[in-house]
C-alpha cells in the first residue's frame, strides 16, 4: 500500500494543473461571504462563520465533490488507473490509497484555510458571540470529509471520470428532493419543526446550515458522524465489488 500511496501522491501533484484549481476553488468558496452583509461593520470570527454557513452551504458540496471527483477520475480517464490493477495490488489497497491521498489533501487544505481565516478575524476583531466555535469547526471538517470521501468513492464505483456527475446528483439534486419531500410529508403529518430538523440533519447541506444553531445538540453531532460512516461504507462496498468484478472502461 505504501507504493500505491506514493504513486497516487505523485500523480496528484504532477498531473494537469488541478492542484492550482484546488487552491483557487477553496479560496473562491471562502470569499463568498464577503459578497454579502458580512462585509459591513467588523467581521468577527463567528460572524464570518455564520455568513459562511448560510452562503456557502451549496458550494461546499458541489465544488469540493467536483474537485475530489476530478482528482480521482483523471486516472480513469487516461486509463493509468489500470496500472494499479495490473501491478497486482489488492482491491482494498487501491481504493484506500485514493482515499488516503485525495481526502486529506482537499479536506485539510480547505479546512486549514478556513481555520486560518477565522483565526485572523478572531485575532483582529474578536471571536464574537456564537458559542461552541471549535465544535462547529470540527463538525464542518467532518462534513467536508463526508463530501470528499463520497465524491472519491462515487468515481471509483463507476471507474470513470463521469463519476463526478454522481457526486453532483447526490449533493445537488438528491438531497434537495429528499429535504423537500420530508418537508411536505412533515406538513401533511403536522410534525413539529424540531422533528423536521432532526430528520433533515442526515443531509449534508442541512448539516452545514444547521451549524448556525444556537446550541449544537448531541444528536446532531452523532448524525454528522454517522451519516459519514454509513454513506462511506455503502459507497466503499459498491466500489469494492466493481473493482473485484474487473469491469473497467
Amino acid at each position, binding site marked *: 500500500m505504501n507504493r500505491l500511496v506514493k*504513486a497516487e501522491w505523485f500523480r496528484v501533484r504532477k*498531473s*494537469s494543473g488541478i492542484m492550482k484549481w484546488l487552491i483557487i476553488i477553496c479560496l473562491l468558496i471562502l470569499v463568498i461571504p464577503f459578497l454579502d452583509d458580512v462585509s459591513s461593520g467588523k467581521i468577527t470570527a463567528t460572524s464570518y462563520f455564520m455568513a459562511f454557513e448560510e452562503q456557502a452551504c451549496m458550494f461546499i458540496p458541489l465544488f469540493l465533490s467536483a474537485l475530489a471527483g476530478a482528482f480521482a477520475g483523471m486516472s480513469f480517464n*487516461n486509463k*493509468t488507473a489500470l*496500472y494499479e*490493477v*495490473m501491478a*497486482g495490488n489488492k482491491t482494498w489497497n487501491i481504493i484506500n490509497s485514493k482515499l488516503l491521498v485525495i481526502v486529506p489533501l482537499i479536506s485539510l487544505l480547505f479546512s486549514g484555510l478556513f481555520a486560518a481565516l477565522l483565526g485572523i478575524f478572531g485575532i483582529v476583531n474578536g471571536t464574537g458571540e456564537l458559542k461552541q466555535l471549535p465544535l462547529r469547526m470540527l463538525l464542518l471538517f467532518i462534513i467536508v470529509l463526508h463530501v470528499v470521501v463520497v465524491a472519491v468513492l462515487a468515481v471509483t464505483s463507476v471507474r470513470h471520470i463521469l463519476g463526478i456527475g454522481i457526486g453532483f446528483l447526490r449533493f445537488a439534486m438528491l438531497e434537495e428532493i429528499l429535504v423537500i419531500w420530508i418537508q411536505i410529508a412533515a406538513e401533511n403529518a403536522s410534525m413539529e419543526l424540531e422533528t423536521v430538523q432532526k430528520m433533515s440533519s442526515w443531509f449534508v447541506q442541512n448539516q452545514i446550515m444547521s451549524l448556525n444553531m444556537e446550541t449544537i445538540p448531541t444528536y446532531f453531532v452523532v448524525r454528522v458522524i454517522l451519516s459519514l460512516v454509513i454513506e462511506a461504507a455503502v459507497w466503499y462496498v459498491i466500489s469494492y465489488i466493481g473493482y473485484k468484478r474487473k469491469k473497467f472502461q
Partner: protein
Amino acid sequence: MDHILQVKGLTKIYGEHKVVDNFSLTIEKGHIYGLIGPNGAGKTTIMKMIAGTCMPTAGSIALFGSEEDIDAKRSRASFMIEAPYLDGSMTARQNMEYIRYLRGVAKKERIDEVLEFVGLANTGAKKAKHFSLGMRQRLGIGMALLPSPEIMILDEPVNGLDPEGIVEVRNMLKKLCEEDGITILISSHLLSELSELCTDFTIMDKGKLIECISKEELEQKCRNYISVAANDINRLATIIEQELGVKEYKVVDNNEIRIYERLDELETVSKTITDCGLILTKLNTEGENLEEYYLSKVTASGSGENYKTQKLGFKKLGKGGK
C-alpha cells in the same frame, strides 16, 4: 519445462457474444510467443484477462506455476494492452516516475537506462500528449520494461511505428529475451515481423485456439514448392500427374499448381509441360511463409479474406500515408 504462464479453458462471454472460447495456452520461460489472429479474434481480451483488467467467464490462469494469489504474481509481469496508458499532462520521465513509485523500483537511475533504451532520453519537458504515436508506443514499452519483469505481455507494440522503429523494437525485444531472459507474449498484425521475432506462434480465430506451433515446426510445415501456371490448368494438372509422375501437388486459386516434389528438376518440369503443348505463364521455386500458413488456417472462417483486405489497406498507407 519451465511454464511461466498457463491459461486453461479461458472463456469470456459478453451478453450472448462469446469473445473467447475455451482458449488454452502454455508459455515457457525464455521464449517469445506471437499471438496471431484477425481483428475481433479475442487477442486483446485474452491479454486483459491475464492482466487482471477483465474477469474471465470461465477457465483458469496460472502465473509462475500456480493459480493461487495471482494478483500478487502479476507484480512480476508487465503489460501493455490496446494502447499505452499515459498521463498526457506529464513528461516521459514523469510517467516513468509514476511507474517507478507504483512498482517499487528502488533505483532512480533505472529510468534513465530505460528511456535511453527506448530512445526517449531527450524528450525533456515535452508532455506526453504532444508525443507522436511512435513515441507513445516507445514510452509504453519503456513503462512495461521499467520494473524488470519476468514476463512482458504486449498488445501490438509496433502499431504506428515507422519501419525503422519496427526494426528497433524487434531488436529491443530480441535482446530482452536473449540477454535478460524475459519471456514475451506479443500480438501483432505484422506477420512478417512476428516471423522474424517469435520463437513460437499461437494462431486463433473467433475466440478459439486454432494452433500452437514452434518456429521449427512452422519451418517444417511451410515447405518449398515449384509454383507453375499455364494456359490450361486442368490439362496442366493431368500432365503433372501422368507425365511427371508427381503425387504431391496442390491446385491453388484455380490458376496455379504447387508441386512439392522434384524441386531440383525445374528444367525437366518446364520441358515436359511445353512438350505437351501448354504455354507456361509461371514457373519458379517458392516457399510458404507465416502469412500464407496463417491464412490457410483462418480462410475457412472467411477471416482470411478480411485479413487480405486489411493488409492491402495497410500497404496503401505505407506508400502514400504519413
